[in-house]
Structures are given as structure tokens and as C-alpha cells.
């Protein structure tokens, strides 16, 4: 019962009986009878929340109409006349609803209605919940809600503090400052009538999917147990084993255990080497965890230990809970790629291990490891690693020829007038348009930019112009350009003109470059300058003056062109399928499964089981060179299709109940014909 715990059951029955006849409802009498007038303000607030079914913070006319049903599901609806009188009594500001007017423009209720969420099925709502709940905590915290709008469109603004608060208070029944499982206990779980379905939506949004699948089981995602780097040649003698260890995470592990673990890895590698000298072990599977070995440079080994995902089942009759490890759930390819990525990222900012050794020996190397990996490992979110990490691809921004040529022209002109610039890369909306760097360097730089640098700097842009979050740069109204690396404010006399340095491959080994990332609206240009040159204020001002206006103009050009293209291509129908496409040739990837990849989270819109199937198919493809096609029917109603043609891979997830193999095949053919008609893709 909705008012259980707030009101007395008997009082409610009596009050309802008194107003059974039409037009006999008098709100004052009713409240008195029910006992609400005698309640504390806190109780009234709770009662208000119950009546305010859609949690809008207001009691609207239609909610009021069903007012009595909040007290008893079988009660009648109020007549129009009654509702009007009631409303008038409570509506102090005459806006046709009871409540306090929020000053903010964002009204989540309206928003849900506009984007059609309010008429979704509970299943879809559950998916939405999953998307919003970035850290998979089972709750939507305030910080997550703040970026609510961005889940729908990357680049949308964040909610203001006040909007977030309103939103959360509407759904947060237990006032713990977050939306989640507890909230559902108070919510009315039985769905009644059309009106309820709509209001239920907001509630369902707050239902944790995990809760829905049963309260008892607790699931643990794969997590990082340890991560270490060693070089066996540094401490070959007994008693000197510690010298081998160059980095160990977590650092608070006891020294002997570190030595033991490293020793074990060394032994395994040595042991497997006897079977295959060229390719020693890559991973070790155990029940509880999995270890990944990677030798990026001679004798340097990076080892990552991942705890397998597990399910904790509560023991019956007070017995301790049992833990079930799901050692088959994680894929070697995915985490192997993660380890390699760790190395690539280190190399991007620090160069190779060998180079550091030459410069400062083991001491410098351990220092650098400490500095880099301590921070970097925090950003590893192993539970979200999937096929895309295996590909490590680049998402390219679709663009018409003319706008592309304009960008070319822009890049060439900037490089000509600022001859210090050696390479330029151009991105829009986290997608690459132009890279002057070679593919492999761009791949890792792209990863850094899109998962680390851009998300960190997105906030000022999303905030409105006048918002205090935007760093005010006086007299800089001509353009929106700003430095993402280096000085935040050119006018600041204290500003430092230091830029991060990166290492990219060159004809003779490696070259060290300054990385200047400059952004105007959604367009970002990365300029790379030889690190031996010292960058001055003059140069930065020159760059700002030259690039700022042009980039601003280009960004709006691209945006305009993009909307035109989208409009001409017609309103996109909600596709029946989701896919991941990857081309090994140019590293182009495209995914309709991933909604947004950020530093902390990778939002997928499909079940992890399906992602696992995709990973498995990918492993199969990797085994042979020939073109292949694999069709899998998953446990649920999903069909998963993997296709490989030359260097391209395509994975499609179809949700078609009762479809047979032939129909699925036809469907995929159709997809290829519409989405990939301009490439040579055998079907």
C-alpha cells in the first residue's frame, strides 16, 4: 500500500467511504479524516511524493484526479469538478498544478515525454538505467545524473546543480541522495491503468536491473588484482630477486609475495618457452584469476592479473555465501589487448623502456613507471573492456568531400604559416577527420584524446556561455578557441607554456614532440612540434590568433554540413540491428552498440553475454586468413552474425524472435547493402 507506514489503514478506509458518491469529495474533510492534517511536515512531504506519481515535483490535474486511488487501489477517480476545486486550493501560483515552480529550464518529465521514453517498455527502461548508472553501482548517483543529457547526445550540456537536485529528489524516495533499488520499495509495484504505465516509467527507470533479476545473487565484475613489470636480467642471482621488479601494483603487497608472484610468472614463461621458443605463454588461466604476460621489449615483462568475474550466492540457512567463479567469461584477446595498450600509452608519453634505461638507468625507469602507471591503472575499467579494445580502432567522422577539402586547406595553411608545426591531426566530436601522424601513432594518440583528454575538458563547453564554469577570457569574443593542453588562459601573466610531450615513430627511431591540443566548439586540432623547440607565449598567442577564428568557422561549417547530410539521408529508422564494424586496413571502427566511450565508462546497449559472443567470433576470425561468416543463435532471442571479408570484420546483433537462419542471413545481406554499399564487402 502506497501510504503504508505514513497513514493509518483504518483512517483511509473511513475517509474513502465518506466520499464515495460523485462530487462529495472535500479535500479538507478528507485530509482531516485520513489524519494527514495532524502529520509532521516530513510526513506531508512523503504523502505529496506518493500523490505526485510521475515525481515531477508537482501534482498535476490528472494526478489529482486519481488522488483517491493512492489511498486505495479500488477507490474511484475524482470528478472533474472535484479535481478543479482541489487543484485551486493547492495551486498557489495558478499554473494548473500544485507545487513549487522550478526556475530551471530542464524539466525531466517533459524531457522524457519528448524523447519518447515515457512510453517505453520496462525492458527498455532497464537498459536506460544501465546506461545512466555509469559505475554499475546499481544506483544512479548525483554525479551521474548530472551528465544525464549527454547519455542521449554526446555534447549536450550538463544539468545545473539545481536541476540535478530536482530530478534526484523526484525519484529518490529514501533521501539517500541517489536513485536506485531502495526507491522501488516505496513505489507502487503493481501497474494500474494507462496513466500508471506512463508514470511507472519514471519509476522503472530507477529500478536496478540487478535487483530485478533477484535480490539474492551478487555479481562481481572482473577487476584488476595486480599489475607488475619485471626484467629477469636485473637480478639473476639468488637474494637479489627484488631488483627484477621494476613496478608492482598494488604497492602495499609484501615484498616476499611480490618476489614469489614475479618468480612464478618467470617460471611459467620459461617453462612454456621450451615448447615454443618464439611464442611463450600469453596468459595463464586459473579458477580465481587470469594472468596476462606481455614482453614489449627484450626481457621486459608486463604482467596483469585479473580476478575472474564471480557470483556470490547467499548460503541457505545462515551458511556462508558460496562463490562461483566464471572463469570462462573473460577473453584472452580483450585483456591481452589491454596490456598492450598499457605499454603503448606509456610509450606515447615516455618513449620506450630502452630509451629511459639509456637516459637514466633502472632508477629513472622505476620512477617513470611509478609516475605513469599509478595514475594510468586507475583509469583502467576492466569490466568494460570488450571487442573494441581488441580492435583499438579509430572512429572517423563522416564528412562530405568539400568540407573535408576545406579542413585540408586549413591544416595546410596553419602548417605553412607556423612552420614549427610538424604534424597536425583534426578531430570533430571525438571522431577523427585528418591525421598527419602515421597510423599506429595516431591510434594510441586517438585513444588518449578521446578517452582521457577530451572528457576531462568537456565541462566548460557544455556549460552555457555565461556560466561561471566557462573560463572567461577577456576580449576573446571573436572565436571560441582555447588550449586543452598548455595554458588555460593566454592573458594570465603567470600562464605556463608547457605542453605534454609525446613520442612518435620517425624514420630513425623515435621523435619527441610537444602536443598542443586546441579546440573550438566541437572541432579539435592537435599540433605537434619538435620537443627541442621551446614554446613561448608569443608562439601560443600567434597560434591562438591564427587558428582560433578559422577553427571556429570550420567547426560551425562542419556542424552545418553534418546536419544537412543527416537530413538528406532521411529520418533514420530505429534499426532492428546493432553492429560493430572494423577495418584492419585503416583501423576504422564503427559501433552502434557503444553509445559513448569515456575515460571511466564504456556504455554498451547490449548484454555482456552477447559481447562475449562477439569476442569469441573475433577469436575465430583471427585464427584463419580466409573470409568467413559465423552465425550464432544466442540464449536469448538474439542472433549474432560475424562476417569477415578481406581485412574487414562486421558483427551484427539481431533481435528477431522466431527468425530462422535463412531470414537472418537475408537480413544481414540487406544491412550490408544499405550500410556498406560503397565498399567491397563480399556477402
Amino acid at each position: 500500500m502506497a501510504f503504508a507506514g505514513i497513514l493509518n489503514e483504518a483512517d483511509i478506509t473511513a475517509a474513502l467511504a465518506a466520499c464515495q458518491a460523485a462530487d462529495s469529495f472535500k479535500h479538507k474533510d478528507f485530509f482531516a479524516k485520513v489524519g494527514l492534517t495532524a502529520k509532521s511536515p516530513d510526513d506531508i512531504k512523503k504523502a505529496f511524493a506518493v500523490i505526485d506519481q510521475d515525481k515531477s515535483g508537482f501534482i498535476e490535474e490528472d494526478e489529482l484526479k486519481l488522488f483517491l486511488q493512492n489511498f486505495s487501489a479500488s477507490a474511484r477517480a475524482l470528478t472533474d469538478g472535484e479535481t478543479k476545486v482541489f487543484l485551486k486550493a493547492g495551486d498557489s501560483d495558478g499554473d494548473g498544478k500544485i507545487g513549487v515552480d522550478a526556475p530551471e529550464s530542464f524539466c525531466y518529465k517533459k524531457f522524457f515525454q519528448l524523447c519518447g521514453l515515457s512510453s517505453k517498455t520496462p525492458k527498455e527502461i532497464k537498459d536506460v538505467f544501465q546506461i545512466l548508472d555509469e559505475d554499475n553501482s546499481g544506483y544512479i548517483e548525483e554525479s551521474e545524473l548530472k551528465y544525464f543529457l549527454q547519455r542521449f547526445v554526446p555534447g549536450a550540456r550538463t544539468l545545473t546543480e539545481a536541476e540535478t537536485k530536482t530530478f534526484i529528489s523526484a525519484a529518490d524516495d529514501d533521501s539517500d541522495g541517489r536513485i536506485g533499488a531502495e526507491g522501488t520499495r516505496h513505489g507502487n509495484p503493481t501497474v494500474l491503468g494507462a496513466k500508471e504505465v506512463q508514470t511507472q516509467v519514471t519509476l522503472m527507470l530507477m529500478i536496478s536491473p540487478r535487483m530485478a533479476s533477484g535480490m539474492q545473487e551478487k555479481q562481481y565484475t572482473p577487476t584488476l588484482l595486480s599489475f607488475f613489470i619485471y626484467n629477469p636480467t636485473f637480478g639473476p642471482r639468488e637474494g637479489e630477486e627484488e631488483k627484477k621488479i621494476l613496478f608492482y601494483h598494488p604497492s602495499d603487497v609484501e615484498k616476499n609475495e611480490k618476489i614469489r608472484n614475479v618468480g612464478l610468472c618467470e617460471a611459467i614463461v620459461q617453462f612454456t618457452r621450451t615448447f615454443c621458443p618464439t611464442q611463450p605463454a600469453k596468459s595463464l588461466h586459473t579458477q580465481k584469476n587470469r594472468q596476462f604476460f606481455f614482453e614489449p621489449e627484450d626481457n621486459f615483462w608486463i604482467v596483469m592479473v585479473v580476478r575472474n568475474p564471480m557470483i556470490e550466492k547467499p548460503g541457505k540457512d545462515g551458511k556462508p555465501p558460496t562463490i562461483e567463479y566464471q572463469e570462462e567469461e573473460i577473453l584472452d584477446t580483450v585483456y591481452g589487448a589491454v596490456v598492450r595498450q598499457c605499454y603503448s600509452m606509456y610509450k606515447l608519453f615516455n618513449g620506450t623502456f630502452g630509451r629511459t634505461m639509456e637516459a637514466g638507468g633502472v632508477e629513472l625507469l622505476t620512477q617513470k613507471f611509478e609516475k605513469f602507471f599509478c595514475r594510468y591503472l586507475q583509469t583502467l575499467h576492466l569490466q568494460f573492456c570488450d571487442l573494441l579494445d581488441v580492435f583499438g580502432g579509430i572512429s572517423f567522422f563522416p564528412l562530405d568531400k568539400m568540407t573535408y577539402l576545406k579542413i585540408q586547406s586549413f591544416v595546410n595553411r596553419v602548417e605553412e604559416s607556423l612552420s614549427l608545426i610538424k604534424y597536425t591531426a583534426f578531430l570533430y566530436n571525438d571522431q577523427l577527420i585528418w591525421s598527419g601522424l602515421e597510423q599506429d601513432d595516431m591510434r594510441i594518440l586517438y585513444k588518449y584524446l578521446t578517452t582521457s583528454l577530451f572528457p576531462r575538458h568537456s565541462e566548460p563547453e557544455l556549460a552555457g556561455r555565461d556560466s561561471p564554469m566557462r573560463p572567461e577570457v577577456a576580449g576573446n569574443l571573436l572565436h571560441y578557441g582555447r588550449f586543452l593542453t598548455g595554458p588555460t588562459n593566454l592573458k594570465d601573466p603567470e600562464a605556463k607554456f608547457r605542453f605534454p610531450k609525446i613520442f612518435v615513430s620517425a624514420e630513425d627511431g623515435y621523435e619527441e614532440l610537444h602536443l598542443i591540443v586546441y579546440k573550438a566548439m566541437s572541432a579539435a586540432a592537435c599540433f605537434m612540434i619538435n620537443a627541442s623547440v621551446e614554446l613561448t607565449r608569443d608562439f601560443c598567442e600567434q597560434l591562438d590568433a591564427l587558428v582560433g577564428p578559422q577553427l571556429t568557422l570550420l567547426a560551425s561549417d562542419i556542424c552545418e554540413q553534418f546536419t544537412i547530410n543527416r537530413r538528406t539521408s532521411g529520418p533514420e529508422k530505429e534499426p532492428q540491428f546493432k553492429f560493430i564494424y572494423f577495418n584492419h586496413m585503416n583501423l576504422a571502427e564503427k559501433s552502434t552498440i557503444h553509445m559513448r566511450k569515456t575515460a571511466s565508462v564504456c556504455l554498451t546497449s547490449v548484454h555482456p553475454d552477447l559481447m562475449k559472443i562477439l569476442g569469441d567470433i573475433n577469436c575465430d576470425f583471427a585464427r584463419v586468413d580466409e573470409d568467413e561468416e559465423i552465425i550464432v543463435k544466442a540464449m536469448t532471442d538474439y542472433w549474432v552474425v560475424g562476417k569477415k571479408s578481406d581485412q574487414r570484420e562486421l558483427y551484427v546483433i539481431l533481435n528477431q524472435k522466431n527468425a530462422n537462419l535463412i531470414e537472418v542471413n537475408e537480413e544481414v545481406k540487406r544491412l550490408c547493402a544499405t550500410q556498406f554499399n560503397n565498399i567491397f564487402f563480399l556477402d
Partner: protein
Amino acid sequence: MSEEHYLELCENPVQFEHASSVNNVFFDEANKQVFAVRSGGATGVVVKGPDDKSSVAFRMDDKGEVKCIKFSIGNKILAVQRTSKSVDFINFIPDYPHTEFTQECKTKNANVLGFCWINWNEIVFITDQGIEFYQVFPDRRSLKLLKSQNINVNWYQYCPETAVILLSTTVQGNVLQPFAFKSGTMSKMSKFEIELPVVPKPAKLSLSERDIAMATIYGQLYVMYLKHHSRTANSPSAEVVLYHLPREGACKKSHVLKLNTTGKFALNIVDNLVVVHHQSSQTSLIFDINLKEPDSAVNTHQPVLPARSIHPYRIPLSGYLWYLQVKLPPTVNLLQDKGKLMDFLLRRRDCKMVILSVCSQILEGGEKGSLPIVATVFDKLNQVYKDYLEAEQSYTVAMESGPSRGSAAQKRPVRTQAVIDQSDMYTHVLSSFTEKKDISHKFIIAVLMEYIRSLNQFQITVQHYLYELVIKTLVQHNLFYMLHQFLQYHVLSDSKPLACLLLSLESTYPPAHQLSLDMLKRLSTANDEIVEVLLSKQQVLGALRFIRSVGGHDNVSARKFLDAARQTGDQMLFYTVFRSFQQRNQRLRGSPSFNPGMKPYCCSQMFTSALSRASTTLSHNFIVWLISFILYLSP
């Protein structure tokens, strides 16, 4: 610096006997003929035209001093004015009587100021009291008055190109009345008044004939008025005021050319440029009225180039008539603003090579321009190029739709020298530019991309040789990833030659294979090529699947596939391909057998052996496949 003289006299002047007491010299503007009349014609008249063909020499009776002498168009009839009342005519048409005949002006007491030939047989007399328009009948040796108009005339001017006569009327002479002539008709155009710097009191003739000139510039008729500097008016220097005289409608003041100096001037029109010669400084200025001046009021023009004298020339004493020419090469160095220079050059007659040399200069020479300048120049060239292509296009469309609809017969657009197309740029500028060793490849690529961008901006289809140039340059410098990105964004448009070029790059850059196949696929007319490529890669099944997907399976030659399959040495593959074609034959002809033309190499004997060896594999594979298939189908 002789390089700085942008004006020069032509090489072959018209030479004639200089004027003397016995030799009178006349010049006819309409036919550009110089008449040297010796002793009234009795000892000979020598007529010299711009070329030798138009030169004539003859004798005529000396009937008094010749005041004016002109041939009608085509040297058909000679008109000679000897008195102020009449004009004499002599036929120059063979077989017509050669005896002179005379026409007196119709208006009583009027003095003939002069005459103008409108046509081969139409003539206008201008008298101080009006104009008379006659048709001449050489066979009948008589004239017929077509039309006349009474008006007080101070002086007149004639523009032969447009057949317009301009009369100076009123006491001050500053009201100008133009008349237009066309195939036997005379029409009065709207008169207009020239603003005089000072209005004289009492009124007297103040507008001199010498200060007015008519000219056609860019196909439009203008009256040019040389407005002298006057102390009273607030004009510090002299200027030339241009009045535009449209065919219909009122004449209006349209351009002002600032001379920035005072003194005596003379005007010329050369190649649609107004050339103003300044006597005291012995220099000349040129003006282009179509050149927009960004920083000045509308239609006020400053000289395009700094004042320079005409290229020095030793003038012999005898009589010469020169044509004035504009030399374009020196202008290149005198005009620093390359955009303006292009605007100027694109309107000149013999501009092509000069423009191309300017292009080379801004790309290569010591004066290497920056990319924005290069872009501006390319855009200006391609604007003209595009305009021409569009005109050509609409002409073709009009021709195809038939003359029935095209009421006004469209003229085929003239391709002027200013139309610099892609092949011009390629042969004269870009191909040699990309060969240059001392220019950074970055700049070369930037320039090529800029040119392609410019062409695209004007929606001109880019020729594949430009793309080839880009690819060649990129490949030379190992910039494959750049190339890949260009292709990915379709900056280099698809074509078969390009796809073939990419295929040839495969050995140095393997991804070129995929790029090439993609391109062939998009062309959709290159299915045969795709099959060839796949077969050459021994991807027989892939080729077969492809040809089936595009519906070409029925017409394809089985031999090609079977050959390729046999070369792989994979007997299962051969069997699969063979069966596929057998099934096709069955479907098409009702029998699995191949055409009798097919070599019997696919005889069953080879198969049986192949099959027997492969049978174990086959059955195994087949069973696995069957099981999986059944599993998938079961709900």
C-alpha cells in the same frame, strides 16, 4: 628598365607619305585607313589599311581641295567631300560606272560638317543644322534620303563598332544627342548633359570635341569625357568621366577615372583598357573599369599600374600609323596584389601564357606566394573556367532541344584565352612544379589539394591525371597513410584508371588492394575487373560469390574460374567451382554439361580421381555442416 614598359607600339606600323603642301593625309576611323591624297588626287591617292589587303591606290580628278575622304565598308564606294555643301561619290564596284556623282545636303544654308559610312551603301551627312541619312545606289548613281533630323550641331563623333553618332548641341555644347543606326533605320537615343566644371557666362561653346571620345569597352558603349582640372571647382586633378550609353534607356555617369595629375591628356582604348597619355610627364596610365576597387567609392578607379611611358621607339621621319599594344609580362611585376593581377590578366586578350607563368611564379620562384594567395589565384581561374563550362553546357542543351524552342539562336560560347582548364594547368604549371626538387613535398601536396579544392568548390569534375599527380607525389614520399585518408574521404574521385593505379601500388603498400577493390565496386561498371583481381589473388570462391551477387553468374566464362581453381591445387575448391557451373548449366540449358567449345579438360575422369581422394574430407565436412544447420533451424 625596359621590362617595366607595359605599353608598346606595334611592330608593323602603317606607313604612308607624310603630310606636306602637296600631300594631304586623312584617317578614317571606321576602316582604319590612311588616305594620302597627292595634289587633290590627280597624282594619286594611296590608301593604306591595317593589313596589306586593304591597301588601295588610284587616281581621281582634282576638283578642288579634299576636306574629307572615306571608303564605305568593304571599299565599295568612295565618298569625297570637297565643299561645305556637297559630297561626291565614286563607285569602286567592278562593272559599275566609275564616273563621279554628287549629293548636296538637303537643308538650305547648312554646312556639311562631315559624313560617316554606316554600311557599304548607307551614309550619314552631319550638317550644322542636323543630320541626313541616305542610301546610295551606285548603279543608278544617285542617293535616296531615308531620314533626316533637324538639330543644331556644334560638332559630332562617330563610333563605327556600334554605329552611333554623337552630336554636340546647345550653345555650351554640353548636351549630347546620340543617334543609333541599324539596317536602314535611324533612332534617336536619349540625350544627356555633361556636367561642366565651370559654367561660362555669357554662355559660349565650352565642351570641346577633343575632350569627348566614344569607345566600346567590354562590349558596352561609353562616352568618355576628359574633365580638366579647374581652379574654381574642388577637384585637385583631372579625371576621365565615363558615361554608359545603353542601347535602351537613359545614359548615366558610371565610372570616374582618377588621373591624379593635370595637364594635357590623350585617350586610347586598348584591349578594353582605357589608356590615358599624359603629355608633360610622357607617361601613360591604364584603367580597367571592371576592376573593383575595394577601398574607394563605387566606380571610382585608380590607375591599375604605376604610370610608365610607352616602350621607347625610334620614330622615323616619314608618316607612320602605329597601333598601341599592352604588353602583359611587365604588369606581372608591377602589380603586387596577385588577386588583382589575376583579375586584370583574365580580362586581357593574350593572357593565357602570362597567367600560367604567374601561376608558376607564385608556386616556384623566389617570390613564392603563401597558400592563401595560391588559393585566391586558383579560385579566380576556376571561376572563369566554370563560367565557360556552364555556357558550353547550356549551349549544348539548347542545341539538343532543337532550334524550335531556342527562339533567340544561341551563339556558341567563345573560349577566350582566359579559360585555363585543368590540362593547361597540368601541362604548364603543375607537372613541372611537382618535379621540382627544392620545394618541400608538403607545399607541393598542399598546392595540389588547394587546386582540387578550388575545382570542387566550383563543381568542376576533376580529371584523373590530377589525382595521379597527387598519388605520385604521396607515393614518392612514402605518405601512404595520407593517401589512404584522401581515398577514404573520396577526395580522389573514383575512376578505373585510378583503381588500376592503386592496384599497381599494392606491392609497396598492401592496403591499396582493398582501396582499389572498393573503388571498382563503387564504380559498379567494373565487375569484370573485380573478378580478374580476385582470381589473380586466387580468391576463386570470392570471385564466384561476387559475380553471383551482382547477377553476372549466367554469362560468365566458366573456363576462367576453373583455370584459376585448378591453379590453386586445391581439389575441393576445384570441385566446388565445377559443381557450381554444372548447376548453372543445368538451370540455363537443362543439362549439366558444358558447351562443346569447352575443352574436355573438365572431363569426368579428372573429377572422379579428385573426388575419390577428397571423399573422406567431403563427407566429414558435409556432416558437420548438416548437423549445425539442423541445430540452427530447430526452435
